[in-house]
């Protein structure tokens, strides 16, 4: 049955309207606001046109520069750790071990806990340099300098936050990669083993190519999640945002709405510019990932 043009329009209109309402209009309005010095979202009566001045200021603001470095490090260092651990856990879970469901649930458990609760436990207990878990653990191993490390000081707070983020994220990415790996027919692995392939060769030549699509999706999810990282940095600085843990989303939020302590001069124009930068980063990185992970069809 051939569908008429009017039927297409009828079915597509709600989705298009929703897209226009919640994405297109806000994006265009944000782009507009980013060209002004303005301190209100709705009232632009006192706005002063700045052209690209907000963007210029943004990229020369030390805190914003630091926040971009933070997300770059999270993307790369955190990405390698999360995906590396996810592959390791996938290999472990697909190796035929007993109680696979239990281990799978245990690996996923950190992702289930509320992020604010996770941050509170890590900041106030695990990282505490006098009686925290890591303090006791390293002391037991005789590593006193590591035991007394001030994890939540300004110098180290980013790495402390990254470690927590890796711990939280590994579970969900393990499940994604595991779902892709479990689709691969078992006969391929059996045939490879019969041919004398070792675990690494099987992983590199069979598993990786056949989960390419899954990896693409996982990479996009990871990238978008990191670029928009917000809750964890806020939760790691309960009162005032520690400079070392800034991310662009946190800086944007403080500029747009003010902070209890910290940046409390509302500058919606600069915040809008930060929002546009984040949007462009997400679009660019998604396009790059799609190019790197171009689909290839495998028949098996």
């Amino acid at each position, binding site marked *: 049955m051939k569908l008429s043009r009017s039927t297409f329009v009828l079915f597509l209109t709600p989705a298009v309207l929703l897209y226009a309402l919640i994405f297109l209009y806000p994006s265009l309005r944000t782009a507009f606001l980013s060209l002004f010095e303005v301190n209100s979202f709705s009232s632009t009566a006192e706005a002063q046109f700045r052209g690209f001045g907000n963007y210029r200021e943004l990229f020369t603001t030390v805190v914003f520069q630091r926040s971009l470095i933070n997300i770059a490090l999270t993307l790369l260092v955190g990405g390698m750790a999360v995906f590396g651990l996810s592959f390791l856990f996938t290999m472990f879970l697909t190796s035929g071990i007993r109680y696979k469901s239990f281990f799978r649930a245990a690996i996923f458990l950190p992702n289930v806990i509320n992020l604010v609760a996770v941050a509170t436990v890590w*900041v106030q207990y695990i*990282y505490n*340099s006098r009686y925290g878990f890591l303090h006791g653990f390293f002391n037991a191993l005789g590593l006193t300098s590591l035991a007394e490390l001030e994890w939540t000081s*300004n110098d180290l707070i980013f790495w402390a936050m990254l470690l927590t983020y890796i711990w939280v994220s590994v579970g969900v990415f393990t499940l994604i990669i595991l779902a892709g790996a479990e689709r691969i027919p078992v006969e391929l692995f059996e045939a490879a083993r019969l041919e004398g392939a070792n675990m690494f060769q099987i992983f590199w030549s069979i598993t990786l190519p056949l989960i390419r699509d899954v990896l693409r999706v996982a990479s996009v999810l990871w990238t978008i999640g990191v670029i928009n990282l917000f809750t964890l940095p806020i939760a790691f600085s*309960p009162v*005032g945002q520690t400079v070392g843990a800034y991310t662009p989303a946190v800086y944007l939020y403080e500029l747009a709405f003010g902070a209890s*302590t910290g940046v409390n001069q509302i500058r919606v124009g600069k915040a809008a510019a930060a929002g546009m930068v984040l949007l462009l980063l997400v679009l660019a990185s998604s396009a790059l990932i799609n190019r790197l992970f171009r689909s290839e069809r495998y028949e098996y």
Partner: protein
Amino acid sequence: MKAKQWLVVTSGVLAVTSGLVASAQQAKTEIVYWSMWNQSEPEAIVVQKAVTAFEAANPTVKVNLNFIGRDIRKLAPAALDSGKTIDVIENDSGWLAENAGKYLLPLEGYLNQPAVGVPGKSVRQTINKALLEQYKVEGKIVSMPYQPFAVLFFYNKDHFQKAGILKEPTTWAQLRSDSDKLKKAGFEPITTESDAFQDVILGYYVQRASGGCDVLQSALNDKTGKAWSGPVFTQMARDIAGLASSGYIAKGTAANKYPAGEQRVALGEVSMYLNGTWLPKEVKGTAGPNFRWGSFPFPTVEGGKGKVNDVMTGAQAIALVKSSKVPKEAFNLVRYIVSKDAQTNMVNDAGSPAAHTGVTWSGPIQEAGIAVGKARRAFGWACDIAKVSEVGYNIIIPAFGDLLVGKISPDQYLERTVNESAQYWASRK
């Protein structure tokens, strides 16, 4: 009359009666009140009681009380911009003047109304004058303080006793000497958080050194950044670094995330903490009922013009919104929030200070109340460093924090603050 007819008549009577009741309720004037407290907080219960007393005394007025919480700072301006009806809002009086002043109604015309519960006195006469006049917008009072705070050194009296300290320090030299005695007695003298309260140390020192907050405000607005290496900041850097190098700053302070530092004081590990008058209440559960709190003002510094009775203070305040259609009724409600009964409840039930001149602060903050009452001069939180917050909180305070814990030297601190603030202003061009 047949049953069917009775049914019709009864239904008609009921309909008319409920219509009358509904329209009677609709006839009540509504005041929309956005409170900064969370519903479970003791201050919220005090506010609720005051609202109930107001409604009982004004049966034609209904208060639509909303406990917004601290997010009111983010939500209220956006809500008012979008045209939402809000008649009364609350927040820190400095924040209200600085960030919400354009929304607020000047109160000059209302302050001479009679105070509730104090015959013969006006509202103006019953509120601490220094707090009332601390923050103005275009020379006019725009908010009524009702829950003040003061920033002082809170300390453990038992520690002082064991260390043989008989009198609280009033000069920087005495603070150092007492810290030394505490250290020798086995206590860690001073702590703070790495994400809070470092700003009040800086603000107080600058006020004591220069006699006011103008030096800090000038430096914040100095486009060259060079003001940060002026004599006040040079002396401050030297003195603060001296605390760290002498071991008077508790180990682990650099890693304290609120409320870790406060808890260390409550656990009896650290002796002194420069904090607000909420400190004893916040750590009540850890400190226990036998903890002996003391407080003293920030000491004077060598060659400085500020005195010990210059107090860093402020208040949570209540304000009327300019666009309110019921300002008279709204101020009537404000009279009940700042009434003697409500303020007494604030002290007794919420353990908070009061702005009412007829209500004494009690318990661990009694000494703080006396200090505020005797204040020669009031100045804002951290000498109002938040007025240029991107410089203050993203450049100066992080550098100050590193100086305080001995991570950088005074020269490195001065160089960093000069260069980074100059870079910030260059980016604003």
